[in-house]
């Protein structure tokens, strides 16, 4: 058994695809048409192209409890998931320049530094760096 795909719920797959590739810098790995205009759409990080894939899943559109959970997490500021970066401050500066909105600015907490931004697709996402 291997961990190859992890998913993130998004309201609009194309919008999410644009945000996650153009702003965050992930690369497209798989894009397969499914019914109803949806896609099996996965991304990988540039420096780990054989690593786990991130599936942009249109769950909240089709399954009400998924939307309820996503909304509740977003409103309480809780990140859906997090991505590791080498330098939180540099990444924060880069993303702010691209118009990304942060709910938590770069913050140190013990042996980690993190920040939280809005992915514009319904989720808070955390970036983190080991200190």
């Amino acid at each position, binding site marked *: 058994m291997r961990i190859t795909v992890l998913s993130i719920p998004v309201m609009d797959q194309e919008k999410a695809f644009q945000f996650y590739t153009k702003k965050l810098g992930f690369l497209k790995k798989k894009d397969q048409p499914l019914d109803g205009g949806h896609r099996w759409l996965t991304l990988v990080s540039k420096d780990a192209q054989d690593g786990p894939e991130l599936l942009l899943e249109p769950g909240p559109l089709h399954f009400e409890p998924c939307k309820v959970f996503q909304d509740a997490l977003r409103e*309480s500021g809780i990140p859906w998931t997090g991505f590791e970066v080498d330098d939180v401050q540099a990444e924060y500066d880069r993303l702010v320049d691209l118009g990304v909105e942060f*709910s*938590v600015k770069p913050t140190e*907490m*013990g*042996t980690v530094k993190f920040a939280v931004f809005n992915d514009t697709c319904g989720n808070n996402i955390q970036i983190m760096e080991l*200190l």
Partner: protein
Amino acid sequence: MTFYEQEINRIREAIYSNEGQVNTAIGIRNFIEQNYESDLNLEILSKMQFVSKYHLIRLFKQYYGQTPRQYLIDKRIAKAKEQLSKGMSVTETCFAVGFSSLGSFSTLFKTRTGSSPGAYRKAQLSRSNSKS
């Protein structure tokens, strides 16, 4: 303040309030990051941070979730992948990232990544060639 920020503040108070310990743990990690390719051992790390070997292991595990040894091995394997992808030979890579035996490097690399260093190198190089 969001619920998340309240929780973060609570957790910070609960587990990161001992600044001295946090700084020691950070110091150990930084030293490993900068010296992973040398012959690192607990003796060196504990002398440098003025803590006993056992305390050092416990402290590191408490703040990073892994022992210093596990962390060092992960670091070396990650660096080995980088070097192999750039085309460095298996033998050179082995010593460049701090392993002292080719046999144990190969075995460890295969256990961690699923392929031998040679096979990994070949796959990475053929991929970058096919791209260009």
